[in-house]
């Protein structure tokens, strides 16, 4: 390719919300088996407008307002997938997916295994998750630990506009059920991504080094990626050159990229919003310790949300991992017995 960049009208910054919407539109246009369903996804376009215009473009049979019943939505999606459709289910908010957990764990996650591969379920379950938007209780849970603990589920979460499009396309194309966690506070984050010519991104199961560095690795995903990038910038003044790894996919977990990074830097901090006890960071820290023990200059540390029910909005800033807490933790990596 030449280096001449042709600027078109599409250079207007695009949001993650638009990228997600575009991903569904393109998937629906390409494959008539793709059906979007959930509460308020039709005329309203979803409470976050992620499904905006889909019902109008593809009809109510392809983008369906369902009755208000999460187990019913996911259970019906199971039957639809059994018949060869590829349902894309919207769970309105993280905590409202819980009524569907029985369907999720007993059927969605296990159908391929139960039927010895005869009946895979290509269902994408979109879950807006996480805090930082001033939502009241039951609107800000980081529920990824429940999902990653369930064999049979693929769990991905984009942190960039590009990934929102690319990972959602990959999820819809996957023959396995995918929990697609949408960091709702990044819905309105922008980039130069072009909805007209979406660039290809690495698929599910690949982590990406978003910033190279030499002093320590921050391992993170979803809503905490921008926080970690900011922390890495700020750390420069303290003399720390931080590498930042964006997991993108929690299951499968790209151990190789993470291990390679930590072996380079010798230090690691895992950062996520969900609680620390039994959270994904515990698993990652254990794994990194097993594989990088002789390269580590300090124990693997974690910066996570507290082990508390999600706090009321006026207190959430104390709960969520922020730049200062990350920097304080990085400082503790200067390990002296």
């Amino acid at each position, binding site marked *: 390719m030449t280096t001449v960049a042709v600027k078109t009208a599409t250079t207007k910054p695009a949001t993650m919300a638009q990228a997600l919407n575009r991903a569904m539109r393109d998937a629906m246009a390409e494959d008539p088996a793709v059906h979007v369903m959930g509460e308020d996804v039709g005329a309203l376009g979803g409470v976050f407008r992620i499904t905006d215009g889909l019902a109008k473009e593809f009809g109510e049979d392809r983008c369906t307002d*369902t009755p208000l019943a999460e187990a019913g939505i*996911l259970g*019906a999606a199971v039957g639809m997938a059994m018949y060869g459709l590829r349902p894309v289910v919207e769970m309105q908010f993280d905590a409202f997916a819980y009524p569907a957990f029985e369907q999720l764990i007993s*059927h969605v996650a296990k159908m391929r295994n139960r*039927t010895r591969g005869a009946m895979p379920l290509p269902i994408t379950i979109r879950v807006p998750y996480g805090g930082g938007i001033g939502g009241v209780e039951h609107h800000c849970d980081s529920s990824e630990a429940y999902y990653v603990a369930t064999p049979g589920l693929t769990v991905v979460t984009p942190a960039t506009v590009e990934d929102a499009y690319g990972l959602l396309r990959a999820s819809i194309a996957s023959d*396995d059920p995918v929990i697609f966690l949408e960091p709702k506070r990044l819905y309105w984050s922008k980039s130069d991504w072009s909805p007209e010519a979406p660039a290809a991104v690495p698929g599910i199961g690949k982590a990406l080094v978003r910033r190279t560095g030499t002093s320590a690795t921050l391992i993170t995903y979803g809503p905490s990626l921008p926080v970690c990038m900011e922390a890495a910038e700020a750390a420069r003044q303290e003399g720390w050159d931080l590498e930042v790894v964006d997991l993108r996919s929690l299951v499968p977990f790209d151990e190789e990229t993470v291990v390679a990074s930590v072996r380079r830097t010798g230090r690691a901090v895992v950062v996520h919003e969900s609680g620390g006890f039994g959270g994904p960071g515990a698993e990652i820290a254990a794994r990194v310790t097993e594989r990088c023990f002789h390269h580590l200059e300090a124990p693997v540390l974690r910066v996570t949300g507290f082990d508390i029910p999600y706090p009321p909005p006026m207190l959430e800033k104390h709960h969520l991992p922020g730049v200062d807490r990350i920097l304080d933790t990085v400082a503790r990596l200067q390990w002296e017995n």
Partner: protein
Amino acid sequence: MTVQELPGAGASHRSTPPPAWRPRTDAAPLLPDPEPYRVLGTPAADRLDPELMRRCYAELVRGRRYNAQATALTRQGRLAVYPSTVGQEACEIAAAMVLEEQDWLFPSYRDTLAAVARGLDPVQALTLLRGDWHTGYDPREHRIAPLSTPLATQLPHAVGLAHAARLRGDDVVALAMVGDGGTSEGDFHEAMNFAAVWQAPVVFLVQNNGFAISVPLAKQTAAPTLAHKAVGYGMPGRLVDGNDIAAMHEVLSEAVRRARSGGGPTMIEAVTYRIEAHTNADDATRYRGDAEVEAWKAHDPIELLERELTARGLLDEAGIKAAKDAAETMAAELRDAMNAEPVLDPMDLFENVYAEQTGRLREQAAMLRAELDAAEQEEGDGS
């Protein structure tokens, strides 16, 4: 106290609700009959189709024998568990008989017999209960969903599948089975509601066999009948004698026809009885008396049909013997097949969790492989 007598509810404050508040459907045609619908032993039996009834008879006898054989296999330790359907054979068999080849059956954990009656190889049907795998067959090949252990969870699947088929323009009906206890689950409600709102071609068959393990129907619901529940969703509820295979066949056929012709879902409550214990692990004497069981034994589905058919000269000794002989042959074949040890490969544990094995699973598979090899080595050394 009536509503009118409540403070502040005086007639002067009343106004007619706006149109949106008027009932959307006339409830009367949806309501079940007060008594379970019966054919055998009633004048309605005059119109029985002799050929169909003789087939029903043979299937019932085979079904009873299947139940006996599966229970015996449990006692021999060949099956981990078997939830018997003795007494409920008419429901199980009629459910399978009314479906066309392209239709789908969504059985609950108790409905192995329905799957077998639909034509599934009994050994494949018993894989789950033997314990060598979860589902012993390809659901798409037989159009039988995996037997569902979590109660009522298969009902929304039936709705989704039927809905998908209709969207594709395919002539497919889904028949979903659930017990009386299962009707208390949220998934039952959600499935009924989705089916009615979507007008999905689904038939819900509730087998009210009196108990959910030990809990009697009276402690399960305060509804007049389970069939009444249908009305609240806007679909017809039908109450039928579940031991009367002619009535079952008729009511189920009508519901399937309705679904097939775009008329939407129907819910059927079959009133029947579980003659044997919940499973071999259950002690039924703790929650019910012999008199009740004996009374139901006198209302046996096979005897009901046999009496009707012999009285009408549609079945003779030779016919009865032929049915019994065929059932014996089936039982002998089943015994032989089940007495063969299944060949299991522990490495299968890591298959079909994902389309592509994750690194983690590959690692764990290697660990098990090494353990198996070491064990084999040891065995070799020891001999």
